[in-house]
């Protein structure tokens, strides 16, 4: 049986971009599989927003090629209504009402005048902002403006949506609500999200690229990035722990115990079965020996992985 190659919604090929003497991106290459939720991760100044802006066609790369849905990222005429963006630092037009703004954008992306208002109202309703229709954009709070930004990004159901720091600067409750909105869209389009909130990305994304100093230091599925199949952690309430017995379990290559955090870290071999089989065996062993378990987590956790990879 032949394996079907995945189709990519976005492909960056050896992209470089400098602003004066500052090299923002250097040879960045990654692919985003169509339909995936993809995270762009990295510390401040890593080049996430620059990469976003190149994918959106806002910036010209100095070198390399950015393809969106197999077209040059700057081919606005073909990507119109298929690619949408929530830009991080673009101000909504303060003089315009939310309704007028959304209707104008809907019409610009080719939605007929008769349907544009209905589509705009629907997009605003999806972000729980129906009552802001007549309010001027300049009068919106930061959280409201972010939601209106999301509404315009999802207007007309585009195929690829770029969300640059969608929850930055928001209070936890609104950030949570925005995460729920994004989750609702997952599976309906390709989502590319940049965020500092690594727990958020680990929760939402299927795959990610980690950027540091303008270069991709790691990319792959979330499972690959967090080494989820190779390592798991068990936090216990109290010991003692017989590490020798755990290491004797099939598929376990090594086990360590950190007394301070009362955490057992189990490293797995290349194993034909699933990591869950090994977890079950180890847990069974611990329970049989009267050890009380506080929590179990697969992989290193994205945060730890990012800390290892970035300076």
């Amino acid at each position, binding site marked *: 049986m032949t394996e079907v190659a995945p189709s990519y919604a976005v492909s960056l090929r050896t992209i470089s971009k400098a602003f004066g003497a500052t090299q923002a991106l250097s040879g960045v290459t990654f692919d985003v599989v169509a339909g995936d939720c993809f995270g762009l991760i990295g510390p401040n100044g890593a080049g996430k927003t620059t990469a976003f*802006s190149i994918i*959106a*066609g*806002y*910036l*010209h790369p100095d070198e390399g090629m950015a393809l969106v849905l197999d077209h040059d990222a700057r081919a*606005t*005429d073909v*990507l*119109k*209504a298929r*690619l*949408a*963006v929530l*830009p991080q*630092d*673009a*101000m*909504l*037009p303060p*003089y*315009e009402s939310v309704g*007028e*703004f959304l209707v*104008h*954008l809907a*019409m*610009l*992306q*080719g939605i007929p005048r008769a349907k544009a208002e209905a589509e705009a109202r629907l997009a605003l309703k999806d972000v729980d902002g129906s009552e802001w229709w007549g309010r001027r954009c300049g009068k919106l709070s930061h959280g409201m403006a972010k939601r209106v930004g999301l509404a*315009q990004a999802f207007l007309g159901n585009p195929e690829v949506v770029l969300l640059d720091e969608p929850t930055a600067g928001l209070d936890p409750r609104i950030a949570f609500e925005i995460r729920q909105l994004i989750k609702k869209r997952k599976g309906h389009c390709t989502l590319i999200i940049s965020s500092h909130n690594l727990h958020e990305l680990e929760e939402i994304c299927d795959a990610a690229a980690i950027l540091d100093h303008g270069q991709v230091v790691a990319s792959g599925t979330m499972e690959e990035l967090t080494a989820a199949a190779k390592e798991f952690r068990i936090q216990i309430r109290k010991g003692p722990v017989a590490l020798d017995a755990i290491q004797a379990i099939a598929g376990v290559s090594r086990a360590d115990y950190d007394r301070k955090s009362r955490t057992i870290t189990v490293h797995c071999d290349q194993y034909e079965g699933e990591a869950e089989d090994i977890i079950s065996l180890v847990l069974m062993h611990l329970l049989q020996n009267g050890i009380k378990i506080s929590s179990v987590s697969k992989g290193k956790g994205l945060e730890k992985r990012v800390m290892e990879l970035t300076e």
Partner: protein
Amino acid sequence: MSPVSEAGLTCLREMRRNLRSAKGIVMGLLFLLGGAAASLIYAAVSELTNPNRQGHDVPEEAFRDLRQKVWAEVWNADIGGYLADSPSIFVALFKGSLWFIPFMTLMIGFEQVCGDLQHRTIRYTAIRARRESIVAGKFLAIWGVVAVLLFALHAFVWFVTLIRADASFSQVLVWGPRMWGLSAIYTAAYAGLTILVSSLTRRPVISLFLGLIFFSLFWVLDLAADVARMAESERFSWLQYVGYAIPDYYEAWLVTPKAPQMLGAMAILLAYGVGATAFAGWVIHRRDI
């Protein structure tokens, strides 16, 4: 969606925004006040200097000769003869409006492009429409807004002229819209130049400053070209040719009785506006936004 539709949508939005903004309302009031002031001055001068208003019976032909002489002095004998049939307030309004159109256009449009670049508001539209269409739409909007404001100014004067019976209805109908139309065509050149200036920077204050320098330079060069022409100096004859590059030069061509020259001036001024807008579109297409 075609680039024309994109430009049309952008134009309508920007016109709505400009006419509803505080700046647009203030400009509208200023234009109406300008119309009122022009009408009042004209009425006062006419009451004081028109002998017929003081009970004399000077034939219309004498006034026509006077208008012919005045306009021949301002432009040339051909134009003087041609404009002698027009109500003098209309010609004075046309001549006067050419003075302030560049600066009014700049005041209305200096932040059209750079305002969107400064706060990156353009990012919402640039992903949905070609950047050149956005620039073209903004050019049409500035041109449209100034043309609408000029219409308000001219219409006020037409109304007063009719009420005071200073001209017949047919004279107002023939000369009023013509003078307004010629002012509107002239505006196209400066609307394009304003868009170009606005696309060269991200900061509205720099755009305004650049525009003021640019347009003042035009004014000085046009004056210098006029002086060189009048002086008929061999040494400064090159200055006459500089005049061709400045929209102000074509003012006389707009009111000439020679149809080809008038059409030529209209085409040149429109080409000026379109050319400057196309260049601005190219600048915005190439720059990072």
